[in-house]
């Protein structure tokens, strides 16, 4: 029974990692952009929510709602004025620019908010739990997983049922031909990064409510997110959810054996999956 419980907790943890990864997966799938600043952008969003919440005395959920359009704008500007200029066949410039951005955001936050741990307080819901058959789950982790599923469902609807989604897929498959059909890849990219930042804000909400955060935790979250994206396969959003769950379950099982092995077993699961399937579990697009 303890194993069942561990696996359930791992799946719930996977929901959080899938949220971290969903925005990354979107951007990666559409423009092959590896955004090394994604983890720090999530932390930035968490601080934005914190500022809104403490200034206006709101519930974190409402705070996140207010932060979303701001983050969308930030993503749009970032893509339009910086990232679009470095996208191309050479993967080095975008990698290095987002790497620089990561360092700038992290240290900018340290400068503005100090290295103190912060938390978004959501009230009694934080400690609430639900008995589900043989196991008991926390309401907050459950809410995280449900949000992850909803976000990925919504992104998939957007991707496969709307005009914008068709433009995303066309640009992903062949940006030049999409351009000939009247799509402007640069605009599509800017909107995609904006949406990715909205998803990052949702991730930031749960990051901040579930545990303490400080300006330096971005890169570690980024690693879990990347592991989820890569395990899932390029361009597959449901794959990203599966990848997050693989990492979450591996970490929970490792921690159950020895608390020091939590992170390590997540990494080892990642390496094992890639040794067997170098392109991940459900690759949609060819790279």
């Amino acid at each position: 029974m303890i194993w069942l419980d561990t696996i359930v907790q791992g799946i719930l943890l996977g929901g959080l990692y899938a949220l971290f990864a969903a925005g990354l997966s979107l951007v990666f799938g559409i423009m092959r952009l590896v955004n090394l600043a994604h983890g720090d952008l999530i932390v930035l969003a968490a601080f934005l929510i914190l500022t809104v919440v403490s200034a206006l005395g709101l519930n974190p959920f409402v705070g996140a709602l207010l932060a979303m359009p701001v983050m969308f704008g930030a993503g749009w500007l970032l893509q339009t004025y910086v990232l679009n200029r470095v996208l191309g066949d050479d993967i080095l410039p975008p990698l290095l620019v987002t790497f620089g951005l990561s360092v700038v955001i992290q240290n900018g936050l340290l400068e503005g908010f100090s290295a103190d741990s912060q938390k978004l307080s959501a009230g009694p819901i934080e400690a609430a739990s639900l008995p589900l058959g043989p196991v008991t789950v926390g309401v907050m982790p459950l809410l995280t997983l449900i949000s992850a599923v909803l976000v990925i469902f919504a992104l998939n609807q957007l991707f496969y049922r709307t005009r914008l989604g068709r433009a995303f897929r066309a640009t992903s498959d062949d940006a030049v031909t999409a351009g000939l059909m009247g799509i402007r890849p640069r605009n599509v990219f800017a909107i995609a990064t904006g949406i990715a930042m909205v998803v990052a804000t949702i991730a930031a909400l749960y990051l901040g409510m579930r545990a303490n955060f400080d300006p330096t935790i971005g890169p570690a979250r980024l690693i879990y997110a990347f592991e989820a994206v890569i395990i899932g396969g390029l361009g597959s959003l449901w794959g990203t959810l599966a990848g997050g769950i693989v990492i979450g379950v591996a970490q929970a099982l490792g921690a159950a054996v020895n608390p020091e092995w939590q992170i390590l077993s997540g990494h080892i699961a990642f390496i094992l999956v890639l040794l067997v399937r170098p392109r991940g579990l459900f690759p949609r697009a060819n790279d």
Partner: protein
Amino acid sequence: MTPSMKSSATKIVALIALIGLALVPVIGSRAMVQDLFMVLTMLVLALNWNMLAGFAGLVSVGQQAFVGIGAYGMFAAVILWGLDPLIGIVVGGVVAVALSIPVAFFAFRLNGAYFAIGTWVASETVRLLVAQWKALGGGTGTSLPKGTTKEMFGVDVVKDLIGGSSSAAADALTYWLALALAAATLLAGYMFLRSRMGLGLQAIRDNAEAAKSVGVDPTRLKALVFVLCAFGTGICGALLFIQITRVTPDAAFSVVDWTAFVIFITVIGGIGTLPGPIIGVIVFYVLQRALADYGTVYLIVLGLIGISVMLFARKGLWGVFSGRTGIELLSLRHPAPRRP
């Protein structure tokens, strides 16, 4: 100036610089020796990373794995097997090579951006595994036994040569080793890139399909570069931690210290050029001294400069300078073959 005159001028300048740097422990202060030691080791790391990312197209974010394992190899040699730290440096290099083979086996299955993340995860995995190594202090790390560096092989000779205390002599010795390592890495890189294999490497970077069609084997060449750079990086890591004398998994496998800074140095100086890392390390050092009192501002400035270079001058400071003036140092170009 003819090409041969240019190249002999380069040699004379390089020789003067080398002699000047070699004299620092004799005429300079101990603080200066320690500062320049850090500069030279960063240069070695940058030269290695430049070879990987700038010439072999292998954008690794996991080079700290080899710095860390080199350091731990040296510590194991000294503490567990009672060897001299100088032999420990060689052990560090060998252990780094041994690690690079499984890492390459894993990471070479991934291309482009996946490779960057794969090497990063591999490095984190090694860090967490090393933190389980209880004989070397586990997660809290360990120190070299007191006096180890003072009793190091060669310290007495150096002491007789330049006078002063044993610690100063140990500093001078590690400094000379760092200088020799930097010079050797630069020279080896130059000779490798001018060789047949180096030409093949640059051909792959410029057009992989065309290179393959004339018989260059990309995977073999890249794997060779990866392993050689792991060796250089591992030796440098071991040397660094002889000077630092204390090792922890977090410090030895720090992505910021051993990879982020190194990436900025290379990018700002000029990635894919041989003088680039030298220019970059000078800029890095000057910025560090100028902004030392401002803490995080220094990193913000470094990040912003890195971003600007990628946006406006891809070939870095050296690329801009070389393009404007036509001056080339350590040029990798070959003259066209003469028709018979």
